[in-house]
């Protein structure tokens, strides 16, 4: 896209010296073209054990019934829908990065969009399994589709937010998958071109006959843009609709108009946290420090800070509205969240989502990889609690006090959740073995304009305001992949 020289004061998006197109390909394809290392095997073993636990727990549920979970007559949803919303939310970062940031020409997305999109797809798969699993009769799930049938005019209920959900999630999944795969085509072609034998045959089928001609590239760019355009509204719509599962009901604590924006912000919040969780490890293990740089990390932390603050404001608004409404049941629902039997869940949520992300105001913390990783985990925990608080603490004490009840999870509840994380990581780990985890083609696009070496060349050529040069060199201080001392001579 951008072939012109970029302003010197912008931080580089690719670090390292002597990075060539070939070097990028070599670096990115290292895990794909070589046998996995010890770290991968350990990770994969743990993750697939988790996935096995998921298979066991889900099978147990299918065999005996939903009664295997801790639900009861009062609390009809708990860890299932908590898990569902959590995973769907996580998916949102991928779409935001790939679509919205593309439209806004945020080139830094190029290094992270591939993994983020992959994460989206795997997260949506995990979420979808919850939709299936939480049904009492999953074998009748087809009833939720508006298929022609022999029962006269028997149709689905268009009033039900769950039907909206069916469409939202399935659209989201299919668009994300197409977008992701389209982006993969040139990179798969690269693998094909370097591979031999059976691998070559497989990748050539997968590459859909990519030729790399100018026309192909032009169409590729067009399709990417169109798909970005289609995906962008999904960033907002999917979680809006998920939030309507709650907002359109009449449960105190659910029946709130603030839910759509609040849920979308929360989704992006948790999604970026998950991207951070994954990439901070991946860049180290896969040796991608030059492509996923401190600039990326810091940018994502800023987004986490922003969305975390939005979520915090939403929490406070909810409390205020409950007070201001003077609605008896609404007020009780929020008092109960704060000080009822599940107070610890509410305060875990508040701490993890509102208070700790504020630490990202400090640059030191934003650019500290271990801290950023820890905080990303904290945010993930907090967002899980948010959904748990919304679902369980609203349901367990609603209108009729005689039916108030507590929810206690069973081993099956816990196993399905832990197992879904295992499933997610199994898929992700397989993904980084067989497909490039960084969009090579897109990174190559910005090599000439936004890389450290390109900027260095500008500096070496002179013609730069000394103040700007100093600013630029100063900004490199945070990069763990740059030797700032090497700039002393320049």
């Amino acid at each position: 896209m951008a072939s012109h020289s970029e302003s010197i004061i912008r931080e580089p998006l690719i670090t390292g010296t002597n990075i060539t197109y070939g070097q990028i390909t070599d670096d990115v394809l290292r895990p794909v073209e070589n046998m996995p290392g010890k770290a991968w095997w350990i990770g994969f073993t743990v993750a697939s054990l988790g996935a096995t636990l998921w298979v066991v727990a889900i099978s147990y549920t299918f065999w005996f019934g939903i009664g295997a979970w801790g639900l009861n007559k009062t609390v009809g949803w708990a860890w299932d829908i908590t898990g569902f919303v959590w995973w769907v939310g996580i998916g949102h970062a991928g779409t935001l990065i790939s679509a919205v940031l593309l439209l806004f020409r945020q080139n830094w997305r190029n290094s992270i969009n591939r993994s983020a999109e992959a994460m989206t797809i795997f997260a949506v798969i995990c979420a979808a399994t919850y939709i299936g699993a939480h049904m009492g009769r999953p074998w009748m799930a087809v009833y939720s589709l508006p298929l022609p049938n022999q029962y006269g005019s028997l149709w689905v209920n268009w009033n039900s937010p769950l039907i909206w959900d069916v469409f939202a999630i399935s659209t989201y999944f299919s668009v994300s998958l197409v977008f992701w795969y389209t982006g993969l085509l040139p990179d798969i072609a690269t693998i094909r071109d370097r591979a031999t034998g059976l691998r070559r045959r497989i990748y050539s089928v997968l590459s859909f006959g990519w030729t790399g001609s100018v026309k192909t590239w032009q169409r590729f760019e067009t399709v990417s843009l169109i798909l970005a355009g289609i995906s962008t509204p999904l960033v907002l719509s999917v979680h809006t609709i998920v939030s309507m599962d709650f907002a359109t009901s009449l449960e105190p604590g659910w029946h709130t108009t603030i839910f759509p924006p609040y849920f979308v912000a929360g989704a992006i919040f948790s999604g970026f946290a998950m991207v951070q969780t994954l990439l901070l490890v991946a860049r180290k293990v896969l040796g991608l420090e030059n492509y996923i740089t401190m600039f990326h990390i810091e940018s994502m932390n800023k987004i986490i800070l922003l969305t975390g603050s939005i979520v915090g404001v939403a929490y406070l608004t909810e409390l205020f509205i409950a007070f201001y409404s003077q609605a008896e049941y609404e007020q009780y629902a929020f008092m109960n969240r704060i000080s009822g039997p599940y107070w610890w869940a509410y305060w875990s949520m508040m701490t993890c989502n509102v208070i700790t992300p504020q630490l990202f105001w400090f640059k030191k913390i934003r650019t500290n990889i271990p801290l950023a990783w820890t905080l990303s985990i904290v945010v993930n925990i907090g967002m899980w609690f948010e959904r748990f608080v919304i679902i369980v603490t609203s349901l367990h004490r609603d209108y009729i006090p005689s039916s108030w009840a507590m929810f206690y999870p069973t081993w099956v509840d816990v196993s399905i959740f832990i197992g879904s994380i295992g499933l997610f990581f199994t898929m992700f780990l397989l993904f980084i073995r067989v497909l490039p985890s960084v969009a090579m083609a897109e990174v190559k696009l910005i090599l000439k304009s936004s890389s450290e070496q390109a900027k260095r060349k500008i500096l070496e050529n002179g013609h730069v305001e000394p103040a700007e040069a100093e600013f630029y060199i100063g900004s490199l201080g945070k990069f763990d992949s740059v030797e700032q001392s090497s700039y002393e001579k320049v």
Partner: protein
Amino acid sequence: MDSNKKYWKGLEELNKTPEFVEKNKNEFAEPIPIEEVLSGSGLSAKTPRRDFLKALGFGVGAVTLAACQKVPVHKSIPYLIKPEEVTPGVANYYSSTYEGQAILVKTREGRPIKVEGNPNDVFAKGGLSAQAQASVLDLYDVNRTKDPKIDGSDAAWPEVDAFVLRELAAIAAGGKGIRIVTSTIHSPSTLAVIADFVAKYPTAKHINYDAVSYTGIIQANQNSFGKAALPHYNFDKAEVIVSFGADFLGSWISPEEFTRQYVSNRNSKSLESKKMSRHIQFEAGMSLTGTNADNRYPIKPSEEGVALLSLYNAVAGTSLAGSKKLSNKAIDNAITLAAKELVAAKGKALVVAGSNDVATQTLVNAINSLLGSYGSTIDLDNPSKQFAGNDQDFVAFVNELTRGEVGAVLFLNANPAYDYFKAKDFTDALKKVRLKISFSDHDDETALLSNVIAPNHHYLESWGDANAVEGYYTVVQPTINPVYNTRQAEQSLLVWSESPVKDYYTYVRNTWDKGLLAKGGLSGQKGWEELLQKGMIKTAPLAAGTYTFGHELNAVAQTILDHSASLVSGDNFELQVYQSVAMGDGKRANNPWLQELPDPVSKVTWDNFAAMSLSDIKKLGYEEGDVIKIEANGYSVEVPVLAQPGQAQGTISVAVGYGRVSAGPVGNNVGKNAFPFYSFRNGTLQTTAVITKFGKTGIISPLAQTQTHHSYEGRSVIREASFTAYKKNPAAGSGNEGEHKDYNKTSLWDDHDRPVYDWVMAIDLNACTGCGACVVACSAENNIPVVGKDEVKRRREMHWIRIDRYYSFNDHGNSEEAVTKEKEIAKLTNFDNVSVVHQPMLCQHCDHAPCETVCPVLATVHSSEGLNQMAYNRCIGTRYCANNCPYKVRRFNWFNYWNDSRFDNYLNNEHTQLVLNPDVTTRFRGVMEKCSMCVQRIQAGKLKAKMEKRPLKDGEIKVACQQTCSANAIVFGNRNDKNSEVYKALQSERTYYVLEELNVQPGIGYQVKVRNLSELEA
């Protein structure tokens, strides 16, 4: 216009070449190479097209056939010769009798599936208790004794008869006694059979033995009036009722009858005429009756005698020797006030006491006599025959056994090995008896000790009769052939007494022909048939005479005081043993419907417990569910603690009827046996004792409660008013004191059409006593699964109707308002002033049903008759509807409760499944269910009216909960019919709708609870 244009296809045609002309003669210009294809390589190519199609066709066909696995076919065999009166799909009703109460038995295709009250029954006029409703399930109990047994091994009836006759003859010859031990029998025929037996074996004697007896009352009446009878009480004639521990609405003598009578002075009709009875209850544990009282005061068992003496003094204006003031000032005042009110209502007052102590009951008689209750609220001339057991007789019998004077014992519906307070003494003594015969239909505790088990029929398989109250005779007729190889006990007795009448049916006929039919003005075969149809005869009651008490009271007072003093021992807690409403004396412990019926007060299922006051629990640092060991009268049990608001401080209550060890797999080891806490004193069994020791065991056994939050948090879900306020404004407390707010004024939705019917309900909170009979009736009608203790603990009971029970506290010192909020209750120190309200809660059939909008697959939709309906087949089980139901009345099938070996206490066998109502489908796991307002009954009613070509009459369709309600608290009907009972009930100023502010437009209107609080009290 003709066209002369000629088109040609090619130059050949234009030129008409000879070749063209030649070729064009044939149909095809060129020969088709058919032969070539058929004989050439066309078909023998590698994969010719035809072969491929053939293979494909065969393949698909074969796979299809292989996939058509044979579906298991259950051949239903139609009647070869159809009985005239049985039409498949149409229910037949037979009149019969349950424990003296006339009933109707609903049978389908020859099997009884439900028991319903007989509207002409004198007791409850169609109402039926939970136990009666549940009794049909016992018929299908697979754990019944299936064959007669001699010494534990199956035998044939002739063998048994030969053995018994031989033994009896030998025993009679030896001069040893023969004893027939039965629970109270009031059946004229059975009594005659026993008399015949006694005539045959002169050493034989009949002993009435009731596990929970009323000897105290009977004996007191003997002492006071020379009439050893259990009086017939008329609560409907009482304007002021003071009860000392008598749970007359729950378990005392004839609760269904008393409920009907009691409510008649408190229901809408009574309120509209500005009349409401006053009910004051003094008791230790919170009983169902206590929850309904206008004023209820917790007193210790040891204070009861003193309180009664004070009441006597206050009523009589005298002071009996030894009487003293109660230590609790508030209760002392209450007694004084109660006395004033009683005296003011002279002739329309009633004092009852639950005690089985003769002296206490004598004092009660004295008070009632002063109040002129005899002849009005108490009828001694048409006595009740429901309980005739005499404690002393049984104690004497055990002594006889010990002395070895008895050669044979026959147990009929009596299980002293379980429910006698000194069971060990009894079982040891029983070993000395040569012949022990049990008629039990289960291998119960006593049957296991018997040589011979001659299993009795279930009552639905039996012939018989009953005479539960003077002048009221009912008939028992079988509704099914005996399921197992059982024989009616009376038949066995006839055989063993070598009676000339060979079968019991003839015997019953003879009894009725000889005298009983004539009492009802009937005679002959026709009279008998009419009796079978009506189920009863009722003779004109004898005039109730007035009785004057003439017994010396000072000695009585002394006995009472001695007894009271014996219950006080330092700071020791006092124990009260009571009958729970669901389990009674424990005879039906193997009935899962009853085990799962939440106790009306504590909401506990599948267990008994130690009820303690909140203050005591706080003081001792106990938690609910802590198992404590209680020791009294040399016996101890370990039961979990229940925090019971209203429990008298320093007391613990434990229910009998639990802790069976040989009831069957359902009832075995559910709870602990509390009968051994009884003591024998002054000729009767006493239900109170001093707890010599109690303390935590360290075990925690959480109780399976269906309700764990007990206050209504000041929410408008419950609305109540005082009778004073009601008299000023009938709308008091209903929230409609001003104008009734129309929440539907600005609705987003179009209203559903309800062109003909609009089925709704009205529930009178002031009539509902909370007994829970409706819960069991609903289970029986709608095939509601039993889920067991663990599932109830997980809050998964399936009942479509539940009774919400809320406590509120009156903190007199601080505020006039009742304290209903959890957080404020936690601050209270005095928990004695408890008010209770019962609220039946079921699907409200909202016209703007929140469940309907959220179901993704339209599995729950609105009918054109105002019903919210479930299509089970369409449900995929997202549970969204249940979450969005503000009333939380939807129930999810978490497991396959009726076909999962882990839920072995209910329908997990084909035999018990015969009790299912064929009009209601059973639900698979993963499906939501809820109250359907007995839509099958609505359909049946409409169909009947249609076939008879007439409009449906109001009240013709009764839903199951309404039908069994002795209090008539539930009215069901068509709101479109402005003359219907339900329409009128809903027009009452007291009517309000629960959560109406949500504008879900519920279809069930509730009527405000009214409390007749004392006007004399400050």
